[in-house]
C-alpha cells in the first residue's frame, strides 16, 4: 500500500497540469470571488453607493439635507439635473435619483406632505433597495428633525400664546433637547415625510430576476460551450484531419472562418432556445422585442464565438484549453455579473467589469427586456462593443492559429 501511495503522489506532483488545476486554479478563483464580494476581512474602507440628487428647490433646507446625506458613510451624493438623472438611470449607468421638487422648503416649514421622490432602476432592485434603506434612515435623522422642531414650536405657540419669547425659547430648547435624544418623529411627521418611490423603467414585477437569471446564465454557459466547440480545432490537429484539410484546396483562413461561422450559428441557436424556453416556461416577455433581441443575440454570439475560437488557438492542448477556459470564463462571469450582481463588488472591480463579455451582453439584454430601450443609443453602443470584441478576438485568433495550430511539425 505504501508503494502505491508513493507512486500516486509522485505521479501527481510530476503532472504539472493536475498540480496547477488542483492548487493554482482554486486559489485564483478564491481570490477573484473574494475581491468581488468586498476584499479582505480587515478592510476598513467603506464602499459607498452612488446616489444622484436633483435639487429643484435649491433652498437652505435642501442644501442642508443633501449635506447630511453626503456625510452618511455609505452614500456618495452625485448632484445633477433631473432629466440627466433619468437618462443615466434609463441607460443603466446609475441606479437611482433623489429629487427635491420646488417648494420642498416651504412644505417642511408648513409641515405639509413633502414634494420629493426616489426614482430608481428596478432592474437593479438589490442595489436600490439597499440605497433606499440607508437613505430613509439618514432622511429621518435630518429632515425629520427639522419638521419635528417645526411641530414643537407650533404647539408651544398654540398652547401658550401669552408666553414671552424668552421663556418660549427656553421651553423650546428643553423640549427639542429631550426630543432629539429620542430621535424620532411623530406619526404626522412620518406621513408627511413619506418618500414617493417611482421606477424609471416600466415596472414588470417578477421579471427582473428572471432577466438576470436567463441572461447571466445563458452568456456564461455559452462561453463554456463555445470554448469546447473551438477546442475541436485542437482535436482536428491531433487526429490529423486539420492536416488533411490543408492538403485540400481549402485555404487555412477558410478553415478558421468556417469554424467561427459554425460557432456563431450554434451560439445564436443556443441563445434563441434559451430565451424561447424562458418565455414558454417562465413567461419572459420577448414577443414585442424580437428585433432588438435578435440583434443582441447575434452580437453576443459573435463575441462569444470569437472568445471560444481565440482560446482554442492560444492553447496548445485540450488540457491547457480546459484549465485556461475555466479560469477566464469563471472570472469574467464573476466580474461581468453572471454569477453575482455587480453592485456588491468594490468600485474598482465594478470598473473592470467592462472588460468582460458577460457585462456588455447582460446589460444589453436588460436594456431590451427590462429597460425597454429602443434600438439605437446605448443599445447600439453595447452591440458595437460586443461586435468589436468579436472582431478583435477573431483577428487575434488568426494570428495564433498560424503560430500555434498550423505549426504542424
Amino acid at each position, binding site marked *: 500500500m505504501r508503494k502505491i501511495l508513493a507512486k500516486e503522489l509522485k505521479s501527481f506532483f510530476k503532472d504539472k497540469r493536475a498540480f496547477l488545476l488542483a492548487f493554482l486554479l482554486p486559489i485564483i478563483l478564491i481570490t477573484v470571488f473574494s475581491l468581488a464580494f468586498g476584499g479582505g476581512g480587515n478592510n476598513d474602507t467603506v464602499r459607498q453607493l452612488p446616489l444622484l440628487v436633483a435639487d429643484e428647490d435649491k433652498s437652505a433646507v435642501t442644501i442642508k439635507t443633501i449635506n447630511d446625506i453626503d456625510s452618511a458613510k455609505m452614500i456618495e451624493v452625485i448632484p445633477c439635473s433631473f432629466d440627466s438623472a433619468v437618462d443615466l438611470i434609463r441607460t443603466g449607468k446609475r441606479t437611482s435619483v433623489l429629487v427635491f421638487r420646488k417648494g420642498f422648503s416651504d412644505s417642511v416649514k408648513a409641515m405639509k406632505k413633502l414634494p420629493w421622490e426616489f426614482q430608481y432602476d428596478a432592474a437593479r432592485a438589490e442595489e436600490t433597495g439597499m440605497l433606499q434603506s440607508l437613505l430613509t434612515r439618514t432622511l429621518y435623522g435630518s429632515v425629520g428633525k427639522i419638521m419635528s422642531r417645526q411641530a414643537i414650536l407650533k404647539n408651544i405657540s398654540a398652547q401658550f400664546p401669552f408666553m414671552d419669547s424668552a421663556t418660549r425659547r427656553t421651553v423650546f430648547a428643553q423640549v427639542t433637547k429631550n426630543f432629539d435624544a429620542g430621535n424620532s418623529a411623530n406619526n404626522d411627521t412620518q406621513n408627511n415625510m413619506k418618500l414617493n418611490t417611482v421606477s424609471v423603467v416600466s415596472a414588470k414585477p417578477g421579471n427582473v430576476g428572471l432577466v438576470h437569471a436567463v441572461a447571466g446564465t445563458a452568456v456564461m454557459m455559452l462561453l463554456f460551450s463555445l470554448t469546447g466547440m473551438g477546442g475541436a480545432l485542437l482535436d482536428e490537429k491531433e*487526429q*490529423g*484531419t486539420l*492536416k*488533411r*484539410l*490543408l*492538403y*485540400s*484546396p*481549402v485555404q487555412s483562413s477558410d478553415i478558421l472562418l468556417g469554424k467561427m461561422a459554425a460557432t456563431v450559428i450554434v451560439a445564436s441557436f443556443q441563445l434563441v432556445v434559451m430565451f424561447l424556453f424562458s418565455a414558454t416556461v417562465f413567461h419572459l416577455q420577448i414577443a414585442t422585442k424580437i428585433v432588438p433581441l435578435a440583434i443582441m443575440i447575434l452580437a453576443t454570439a459573435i463575441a462569444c464565438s470569437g472568445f471560444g475560437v481565440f482560446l482554442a488557438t492560444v492553447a496548445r492542448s485540450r488540457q491547457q484549453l480546459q484549465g485556461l477556459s475555466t479560469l477566464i470564463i469563471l472570472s469574467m462571469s464573476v466580474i461581468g455579473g453572471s454569477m453575482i450582481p455587480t453592485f456588491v463588488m468594490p468600485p474598482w472591480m465594478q470598473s473592470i467589469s467592462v472588460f468582460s463579455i458577460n457585462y456588455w451582453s447582460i446589460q444589453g439584454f436588460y436594456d431590451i427586456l427590462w429597460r425597454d430601450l429602443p434600438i439605437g443609443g446605448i443599445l447600439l453602443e453595447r452591440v458595437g462593443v460586443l461586435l468589436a470584441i468579436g472582431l478583435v478576438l477573431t483577428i487575434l485568433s488568426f494570428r495564433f492559429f498560424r503560430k500555434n495550430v498550423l505549426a*504542424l*511539425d
Partner: protein
Amino acid sequence: MIEVKDIYKTYGKTQAVKGIRFSIKDGECYGLLGPNGAGKSTTINMLSTLFPPDSGEIVIDGLDIKKSPGDVKKILGVVPQEIALYANFTAWENMLFWGGLHSIPKSELHKKAQDLLVFVGLADRKDETIKSYSGGMKRRINLACALLHSPKILLLDEPTVGVDPQSRNMIFELIEQLNREGMTIIYTTHYMEEAERLCDRIGIIDSGLIVAQGTLEELKKQSEVKDVIVVECGKTPDESLLSATLGLPVKAIDHTVYIETSDSKKDLTRCVIGCSNAGYEIHHIDIQKANLENVFLKMTGKQLRD
C-alpha cells in the same frame, strides 16, 4: 512527373531535410524508406504543399509548388499517416465531405464515392460511422478519401501503420491496382518488405538525406550486399580450403559456413557439391537473400527500426 531538387527544411534548431534530390517518372511507384524521424513525413508535407522548402525546388507535373500550390493540390492525393477522418460521420458522409472540398459536382462526386467504396470493399458498410470500423477498414476509407478527385499522383505516408497483415495485404493490392492503372505513387514506409513489394525504385532516407536510391537490384549492387548460402555441417569446416574450392568468400563459425554470392541460385549446387567433396556432411542448407534491411544496414550503419 516529379522533380525534387536539393530541398532543405529546418524546424527551430533541427534540420529535418538536408538537401534531398530525386525524380520520379510518370506511372512509377517510388518508395521513401527510412526509420522514424528520418525526414520522410517532412518531405511528403513539402511535396503536398503543406509548407514550402526553405531552399531548393519541387516541380510536380511541370508546376512549381511554391508558385502554383493550388494547381498542384488538384493533381495530388494525399493519404496521411493518421486516420484523418471524422469518427462520428459515416464513411459515406466522410467521402462526400472530403470530395466536396475539391468542388466536384454533386452527381459526379456521388458516383465516384460509390465506385471507390466498391473499390476498397466497403460499399455495404458505407452508412456505418467510422468509429465502428476496424483499423484496417479505417485505413481503406482513409485511402479512398484521397482518390475522390481522381489525382494523377498519390502520396502515401506510412498508410499501413497499426494494420493487421490481412488488411495490409488488401491495401497493397489496392495500391498495386492503382499503380497498374497508371497512377504515379510515392510511398513512405519503414517496413522494407512493403517497399520491396510495391516500389519500382526506392530512396533510402536517413537523417534528412537520401543515402542511396534505385531499384532493389541497383541498391544491392551499390551497397555490395550479397546473398548468403548458409551450410550447417557435421564438423567445423576449413574456411581457406572451402574458399579455394568454391572460388567464393567463405566464413566459418562453429559447424556453420557462410558463403557470400551475388547469385545464390546459380551457386547453390556448386556449394553443396564443394562441401560434400571436401568431406563435410551437410545437415542443413539455407539461403539468406540480400534484402533492403541488409542494404539499409550497410548504407547507414543502423537497423531500419532503430
